[in-house]
């Protein structure tokens, strides 16, 4: 049991536990704040998967951007929402939710089955990558390479995403404008 492996288990546990809490909590605000823990734990998992840049991006965009945005939207939509939500049927196990639980569990079973069947670690291309030393090692620095790749190999998707972001920006701004504003 190396330290990294221990860290992996701790992080996975935190991620899954907090996600479950977010899913089961009746309190919307807590659900949002605990989702922040999930995201942070996931960032940790990315670091363990040797993608430090993605991890930090996750923190910047998800935690600094998306979560704050969600909180903002929630707080802007007024306190009444909260009151309505807090007075939901208060049982922990709700009969209405049972089909959803069954669906999720069955899905999980199926996906786990598939994962175990697929045996990802022995896929031919992964073996090949390890053999050709095309595997990221803990000491290698990837950001230079990511930057170069973004501007060369993935230029088209990069541009497409930027256009999409612009459209989303304009669309969101337009949608959330007050009625009769223009």
């Amino acid at each position, binding site marked *: 049991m190396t330290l990294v492996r221990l860290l992996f288990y701790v992080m996975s546990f935190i991620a899954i536990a907090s996600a*479950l809490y977010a899913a089961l909590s009746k309190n919307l605000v807590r*659900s949002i704040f605990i989702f922040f823990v999930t995201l942070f734990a*996931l960032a940790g998992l990315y670091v363990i998967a040797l*993608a430090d840049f993605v991890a930090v991006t996750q923190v910047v*965009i998800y935690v600094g951007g998306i979560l704050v945005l969600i909180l903002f939207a929630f707080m802007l939509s007024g306190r009444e929402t909260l009151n309505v*939500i807090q007075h939901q049927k208060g049982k922990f196990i709700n009969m209405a939710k049972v089909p959803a639980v069954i669906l999720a569990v069955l*899905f999980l079973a199926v996906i786990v089955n598939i*994962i175990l069947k697929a045996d990802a670690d022995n896929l031919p291309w992964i073996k090949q*990558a390890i053999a050709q030393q095309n595997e990221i090692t803990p000491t290698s620095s990837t950001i230079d390479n990511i930057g170069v790749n973004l501007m060369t190999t993935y230029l088209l998707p990069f541009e497409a995403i930027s256009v999409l972001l612009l459209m989303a920006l304009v669309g*969101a701004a337009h949608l959330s404008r007050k009625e009769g504003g223009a």
Partner: protein
Amino acid sequence: MITLTDFLLVGALLFCTGMYMIVSKRNSIQVLIGIELMLNAAILNLVAFGKYDKLNNGGQVFALFAIVLAAATTAVALAIILNVYRRYKTIDPDEIKNLRD
């Protein structure tokens, strides 16, 4: 050594949690969080596989794209939710059944 399967299992768990939230929650914002959870599960898979692509960084780059896309999705979704709230005074997806203007 942490194997790919470990990452995939964590991803699967997160994915199913998110799915549960999407189908069961009576609040659009929580549904949105469920969507984000599912997206994150997918990103985790991308990153995990991306470890074996040092040259092209396909996994990591597309993880970045997915994060950015998630931001765009959230912005638009929240704008819609706010509008819906303004009109129906509720954000329970079950209550919003009218498609007409």
